[in-house]
C-alpha cells in the first residue's frame, strides 16, 4: 500500500459535473459509502451501486469512501474512484466505461483542421458538450492545463472521456505530456481510438521518433486498427530552427503547430497583438510545413472576450499560409472556421479559373487563359484546392458546375 488516504477529483462553489472522492482502505468493516450529492434523490442509489461495482472489480472488500458530488456523470465518478484506488494500490486493472459506437471512426491525414478546441484534462464540465460546437478537432489536454499533482487522475478521466463523450465526428486528439510521462499517457490512451496525438514543445526530430515508435508498439501489441497521426507543436527558438526536419520526422505527421506563449517567452519578449516578434517564426513554420507536405496550424488567441481581435488574427494567419488555429473557448470556433474557409470572392474566382482550365483541357490548349490574362498552373492548382475545400465545407454544392449551366 502506498498510503492510507487518497483524495481525487474537484469540489467547490464553482465546480460542476465533478466530484471529490476521499478514499480510505481498511482491513475490516466492509464498504462504507458517505455520499453528499446535488442529485441525491435522483441518482443516489445509482452512484452507490457504481461504487460497489468498482470496488468489486478491484477486489477491495473494506473501505470508507466519501463522495461530494456536483452532478458528475458516471464516467467521471468512476474515473475519480479508480484514480483514488490507484493512489493507494498497485493495481493495473482498468474499469472501462462503454465505448460509444459513434466514437469509433478512424482519422484521415488530409482532413480539415481549421479549429481544434483545447479541453483541460481535469475539468469534466468542459468535456461533456464539447462535441456540439462544430470544432474540427477536440484536444483532451494532459499537458499545460493540468497541474502536476493532477496528472495521473486526469489521464484516467481523459481515457473515460474518449470512450463516453460523444465527439460527433470531430478529430479525436490528445495532447500528451513531455518525456517519460507522455509515453505513459500513450500507453493508457492509444487503445481508445485516438486519431491524433499533439506532441508539445518539440525541438528535435528524435522527440517525434520516440513518440511515433511508442505508438507503433502499442498499436501492434493491442491490434489497434485505426491510424494515429501526429501534430508536433513548436514552442521554442530551437524548435523553429529544426522545424523542417521535425515536420519530416515521421510519415504519421499530418500537421505542425506553433505555440506562441512559450515561443515568445523563449526569445525573451512579450507576445504582442500584432505578432511582429513571431512573424519570422510563424512564416518559417509555414514554409517548413508546406515543404514537408503537411498542414501548418497557428497558435491560440488568448482573449476569449475579443471576437473582433480574433477575427483579425485569423485573417492575418490565413494570409501567412496557416490552415487552422487552436481554440480555448467554444465561442471562438465559428469565427475561426468561417475565417479560414474560402470566402465568396475566392470561391467565385476559383470557379472561373477551374472552368477555364477544363475548357482549355477539352480543346487541347496548353495555355489556360481567363479573358486576356494567362493563368499559371500553380494558380489553377490553388483554385482546384479552394473549390475542393468549399465543397467539403458545404459552401458550394457538389453540382456547382451543372448549376452554372
Amino acid at each position: 500500500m502506498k498510503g492510507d488516504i487518497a483524495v481525487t477529483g474537484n469540489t467547490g462553489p464553482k465546480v460542476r459535473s465533478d466530484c471529490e472522492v476521499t478514499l480510505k482502505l481498511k482491513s475490516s468493516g466492509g464498504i462504507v459509502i458517505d455520499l453528499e450529492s446535488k442529485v441525491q434523490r435522483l441518482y443516489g442509489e445509482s452512484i452507490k451501486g457504481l461504487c460497489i461495482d468498482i470496488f468489486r472489480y478491484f477486489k477491495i472488500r473494506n473501505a470508507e469512501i466519501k463522495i461530494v458530488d456536483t452532478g458528475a456523470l458516471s464516467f467521471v465518478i468512476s474515473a475519480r474512484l479508480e484514480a483514488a484506488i490507484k493512489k493507494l494500490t498497485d493495481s493495473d486493472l482498468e474499469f472501462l466505461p462503454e465505448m460509444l459506437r459513434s466514437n469509433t471512426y478512424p482519422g484521415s491525414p488530409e482532413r480539415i483542421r481549421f479549429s481544434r478546441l483545447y479541453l483541460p484534462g481535469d475539468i469534466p464540465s468542459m468535456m461533456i458538450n464539447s462535441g456540439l460546437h462544430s470544432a474540427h478537432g477536440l484536444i483532451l489536454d494532459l499537458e499545460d492545463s493540468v497541474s502536476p499533482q493532477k496528472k495521473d487522475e486526469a489521464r484516467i478521466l481523459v481515457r473515460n472521456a474518449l470512450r463516453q463523450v460523444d465527439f460527433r465526428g470531430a478529430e479525436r486528439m490528445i495532447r500528451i505530456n513531455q518525456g517519460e510521462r507522455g509515453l505513459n499517457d500513450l500507453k493508457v490512451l492509444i487503445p481508445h481510438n485516438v486519431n491524433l496525438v499533439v506532441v508539445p514543445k518539440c525541438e528535435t526530430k528524435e522527440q517525434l521518433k520516440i513518440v511515433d515508435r511508442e505508438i507503433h508498439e502499442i498499436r501492434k501489441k493491442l491490434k489497434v486498427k485505426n491510424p494515429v497521426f501526429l501534430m508536433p507543436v513548436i514552442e521554442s527558438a530551437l524548435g523553429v530552427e529544426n522545424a523542417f526536419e521535425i515536420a519530416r520526422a515521421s510519415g504519421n505527421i499530418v500537421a505542425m503547430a506553433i505555440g506562441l506563449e512559450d515561443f515568445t517567452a523563449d526569445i525573451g519578449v512579450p507576445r504582442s497583438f500584432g505578432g511582429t516578434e513571431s512573424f519570422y517564426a510563424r512564416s518559417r513554420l509555414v514554409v517548413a510545413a508546406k515543404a514537408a507536405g503537411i498542414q501548418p496550424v497557428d497558435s491560440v488567441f488568448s482573449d476569449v472576450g475579443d471576437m473582433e481581435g480574433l477575427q483579425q488574427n485569423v485573417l492575418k494567419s490565413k494570409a501567412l499560409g496557416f490552415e487552422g488555429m487552436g481554440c480555448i473557448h467554444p465561442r471562438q470556433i465559428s469565427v475561426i472556421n468561417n475565417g479560414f474557409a474560402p470566402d465568396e470572392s475566392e470561391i467565385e474566382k476559383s470557379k472561373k479559373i477551374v472552368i477555364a482550365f477544363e475548357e482549355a483541357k477539352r480543346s487541347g490548349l496548353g495555355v489556360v487563359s481567363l479573358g486576356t490574362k494567362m493563368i499559371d498552373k500553380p494558380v489553377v492548382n490553388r483554385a482546384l484546392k479552394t473549390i475542393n475545400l468549399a465543397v467539403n465545407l458545404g459552401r458550394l454544392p457538389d453540382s456547382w458546375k451543372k448549376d452554372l449551366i
Partner: protein
Amino acid sequence: MAVRTVINAAGRMVPLEINGEPVIPFKGVGKHQPSGRKYAPLIPSCSEFPADGNKVIRSLREALVKCGLRSGMTISTHHHLRDGDLISNKIFDLASDMGVKDLVWFPSASFSCNDPVIRYLEDGTINRIEGSMNGPLGRFVSDGRMKGTAVLRSHGGRVQAIQDGEVKIDIAVLVAPSADSFGNAKGTGGNSACGVLGYAKADAMYASKVIVVTDNLVDVPCFPMEIEGNYVDYVVVVEKIGIPEKIVSGTTQITKSPDRLLIAELTASFIEKSGLLKNDVTMQAGAGGTSLAIAVFIHEILKKNGWKAKFGFGGSTKYMVKMLEEGQMGYILDAQAFDLDAVRSVEENVNHFPYSVFNAYNYHSKGNLTSMMDIMILGATEVDLNFNGNVVTHSDGYLLHGIGGWQNCLHARNVILPLPLFRDRIPVIVDEVTTLCGPGELIDVIITERGIAINPLRKDLIKSVKGTGLPVRTINELKEEAERICGKPQKPKFENKIVAAIKWVDGTVIDVVRKLKPDN
C-alpha cells in the same frame, strides 16, 4: 378527514377540496365553462372619504388597523419590486405584532427577499401562501411544513381567480414608486422605479380595502396613473419602499454559456427556417439569458430582411427596447420591465406602454392577447414524451418556481421551449413530468443543444422545416440521449399529503404537489 380525490382529464389525481373549499378538477383545454357573474367588492361612497382627496395617513400599521386587519384575512401584494421589495415582509411583522393569525398571503409572486416570512408560516401568523414559491419557501412547502395548502396560479389565473371571486382579497397593500395623496399611482419616478404596475391593477379593483405605499409622494395628479385613486382607501408614505438595484437589474445580460448560446442560435435558426418569423410577426420572449440571446438573433434576422415585428409583449428588456428604437418592432405592450433601459423606455416612448393583465392573460374574458401571438419563447424545468410541461417543481420533487405567465402564454400559435437536454446531470426531457403545469397539446417545439423535437400534432411545422438541415428528432430520441448521458434517474418519493395545488388558467386543478419523503 380524508379529502376525496379524482383523476382529472389530464390523468392526474387531484382533490375535490382545497383548504376547505370545493375545487373543480381540470376538464381539458377550453372545456370548463364558467357560469355566474363576476365578483364585486362592496360599493363605497365618496361621503366616507376626505373631500380634498387627501388619504395620506401616518403609518402602515395605522392603515392596516383602519382596514380592519384580523385573523383569517387574505392579504395581497404585487411583485413589481421583485427582490428589492421592503414592504411585503413588513405587513406580516406588523400583523404578528398585532397578534393576528391564519392570514392568507396572496402575492403575484414571491422572491428570496420574502424568505423571512417563513417564521410567520411557522408561528401561525400566515396559514398559507397562494402564489409562487421559490428557494427556501418552496422547500418549506415541499417538506410539508406549511399549515394550509399552497395554491399556485399563473399571472392570468390570478386575475381570473380575483375576478371570479375564487380569491376574495380583504386588504391589498400596493407599493408604488410614485403616488399622489389621492392614491393615483404609477411604476415610474422616484428612487424605486419599476416601470409598470401591471400585476397590481386587479388587486386595486377587486380588494375590499386598498392601501398604496410609496416613498415618492407627488402632487395630484400622479400621471400617467396605472392605479386609479378612486379604488384606494389609504396612502402611506414611507422612507423607502425598495432597494433599487434589486428591483431591476441594471442591465439584463445575454448568456455567456457556449451551450446556451448554441440553443439560442438553433432557436433563431428554427424560427427563421420554418418561416415563422416574418414581417408583422407578434412575439414574446423572456428575460432569461438564453431568451435574451434569442431576442438578439431575432433582431438581426428582422433587420437583414427589412422586417418589422408588429408588437412584442413584455416583460421588456433592453434588447426588446433596442428593436423598438431601431425600428424593428412597432410597439411594446408591457406587464413588467426587467431592466433600466426598459424602465426608461416605458417612461419616454409612447409606443412602449403598460398593458393590462386582464387584456393580456385572463382566460375568463372575451378573448385575450396570448392567442393572437405568433411566436412564444418559454422555459420549463421538465418536458415529457407527451410534450407536457412542468415549471414549478424540479425532477427531485421540490417546489422551486412560480408559474408566472407561462400557462397563459401556452395559448400562442407557436410555443417554443429552448431547453438544455440536461442540467448538470438531471435530464430535462423525461417519461412523465413530475408536476403537470401545461398540457402537451399546447407545446409545439422543444429545442435542445442536441436536437429539435416538434410536437407530432404540428404536422405543418414538421413539414415547414423539411430539407432545411435543422437537426429534427423525435422527443423519444432526445429523451433516450439524455438518459444515455446521465443515466436513468430514480423517481423521488412522495407522501400522500398534498402541499400545493396547481391551477389551470380557468381555475380548475390540473395537478398537485405532494410532500416529499424525508431524505433517506
